[in-house]
């Protein structure tokens, strides 16, 4: 993400320091991670020390300081999914992709995250890939679901 685009986003939020989180969220959503150069630009423009930005970027779950894979897998570990066996689904996906939650594989295909409730409890256990919900999964179904992604 170039500095011009970062400036546009900052402009949209009137360049106020208390919009910091909203600015970071927009950069994260567009770029899918927060590169150092963008953070430095935000720090300079909003007059917020980089240490505080680092604090925020590591505190909130939505932010990533490393590049993400082309497809983001979210496995719901909410209570309703948990009692319906989401742990087994997670184990199966970990096996298939070879990565743990919070990690991205080496060819940047998949990033794996666990989330706490997607609010689709009727469909549990639920896995979301790039916003698409795969519901009522058994561990054996996961391979078929992952195959669709290149």
């Amino acid at each position, binding site marked *: 993400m170039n500095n011009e685009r970062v400036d546009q986003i900052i402009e949209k939020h009137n360049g106020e*320091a*208390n*919009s*910091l*989180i*909203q600015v*970071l*969220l927009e950069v994260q959503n567009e770029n899918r991670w927060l590169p150092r150069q963008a953070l430095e630009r935000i720090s300079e423009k909003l007059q*917020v020390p980089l240490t*505080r930005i680092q*604090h*925020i970027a590591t*505190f*909130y*779950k*939505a*932010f990533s300081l490393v590049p993400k894979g082309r497809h983001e897998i979210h496995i719901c*570990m*909410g*209570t*309703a999914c*948990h*009692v*319906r*066996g989401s742990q*087994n689904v997670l*184990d*199966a996906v970990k*096996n298939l992709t070879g990565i743990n939650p919070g990690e991205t594989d080496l060819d940047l295909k998949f990033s794996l995250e666990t*989330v*706490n*409730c*997607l*609010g*689709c*409890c*009727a*469909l*549990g256990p*639920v896995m979301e890939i790039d916003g698409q*919900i795969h*519901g009522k999964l*058994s*561990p*054996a179904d996961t*391979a078929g679901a992952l195959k669709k992604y290149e």
Partner: protein
Amino acid sequence: MPRINSSAELEKLRESILSKIDPNKRTITLCSGTACHATGSKEVASSIEEEISKQGLSDQVDIRKTGCHGFCERGPIIVIQPEGICYLQIKPEDVPEIVSQTIKQNQILERLVYVDSVNEEKIIHETEIPFYKNQQRLLFGNNIKIDPKSIEAYLALGGYSALAKVLFQMTPEQVLEEVKKANLRGRGGGGFPAGIKWEGSRNAPDDTKYVIVNADEGDPGAYMDRSLLEGNPHSVLEGLAIGAYTIGAREGYIYVRQEYPLAVENVGLAIKQAEEYGFLGENILGSNFKFKVIVHQGAGAFVCGESTALMTALEGRAGEPRPKYIRSNIKGLWEKPTVLNNVETWANIPLIINEGADWFTQYGTETSNGTKIFSLVGKINNTGLVEVPMGMTLRDIIYKVGGGIHRGRKFKAVQTGGPSGGCLPDDLLDLQVGFDELTQAGSMMGSGGMIVMDEDTCMVDVARYFLEFLTDESCGKCVPCREGVRQMLKILTNITQGKGKDGDIELLEELGETAKEISLCALGQTAPNPFLSTLKYFKDEYEAHIKGKKCPALYCKELIAYYIDPEKCQACMACLKKCPSDAIIGGKKTIHVIDQDKCTKCNTCFDVCPPRFNAVKKISGEPVPSPIPEEERIIAKGSKEK
């Protein structure tokens, strides 16, 4: 659209909207909430639109995409008005038939209607389905009637009349009295009376004050606030504006999780519309009251649901709570008096103003009034959002509304209150649901998650699960929460892995006591609850894990083994083909055996074994029987037919 500048103009507009609506016109109402989206309501919507125009019915039939209807288990759902015919689990291929049969010829498609699980009776009308019939949908009922993207739909149902009433017929003191009299308690978890909170802020000397909607719904297994905000955003805005008028605030915030994109979209649109019509902004409805609302997206931190942490996050910092020597209604956001209430609490306000406190208090128990929306999930037949009067028993909610336990299994516990709550066993099923009743039983109301568990759920694992969640979500500011909860998790994990030892329970109790006494915020103070309540009601399970190295629910992986009963196995190859780790030895006509060294205990073989064979067993606390000799594994033709 012209701005509305007085109460009379509002009523005139309402009349003109209503005059354009023909109550007898055919309308297909389609649930477009998040859960139905996930099951394909978007595709259904486009095929309805296509089919209606193809069959030349565009003038005669309206299509209305609404917020969540609540019956998420059976989505996508459509209701055909004015008759109220309800079809469940619709697929795009059902649509041509629905249009040609039901819309054109009034024929009911029996395969799409609700079938009662008890007497197999077919129920056509939405209001007669037991799931809906046993509810009291004061707040949530409008979701089904309106398109959340249309302010006119809200106005047609009497929207913003409460705001007009407050501005032109009531003083702030009178509004405050009414809210206090209604005894509206905070729906976000604490149950603190909203009126008293408001009064504190109103009386605070500062000129600048704020109101906030807490829509940072983080409890796993709870999604009612999202559905209200998605499905009826104007009701929340109207409540918020009334609150602002009462305490004297000019600015309000909606703090909503960024994981709820549809809620963010709908509430943003609603604010824009309300500003255009003059329900928000300068000189609201021609009065001298001004009020603006800003949406702030949360970046994903459970602790931000805590009021002081949420305010810190709004200020653009990491959302850590602060000690509440001075309450936030006196010194909150930017050190100014701030009233923070949950989505559902705000949505109750217009109702209380319109109908009066006496009407409101007829619902509920002595100390908990009105209704409460619960998210009824887990091992239950009718997963969904249910709104019931306070004081209904757990049994009625689970069996009458929820339709009982999944697959006819036995009820074990219901977990209420999210990670801060507790698990209640079957002998408390007749407990009336209310703030104080649940707290006395060792759980709490929380935001309204209700997770039903059956006999296959291990209670020690449930406690471990919640502590894992809380360890992950602890902000790390205070030691008892950051370190104490982590230690509790370590011990509980050991217990579920068969490494529990004498003294563990006592140590857990001591750590829990400390976290409860000296943590900074409610997250740490209530963190021991999942453990304490499961210990109180299910102590035998803890003892079985620690002393017998046995998981009675056959859930904890390290304590169970899978075994195929050679007497029952028909060598059907189902499990052998599906096993992801090739741990099953056998073949056609050769009884299958599990290689215990290779087995990863993924449960696949247990799931796929046909129920008529039922050969895969889980065992715990006893050795796995040794496999039968290879020569005895061959099944001779006909020898096993029984």
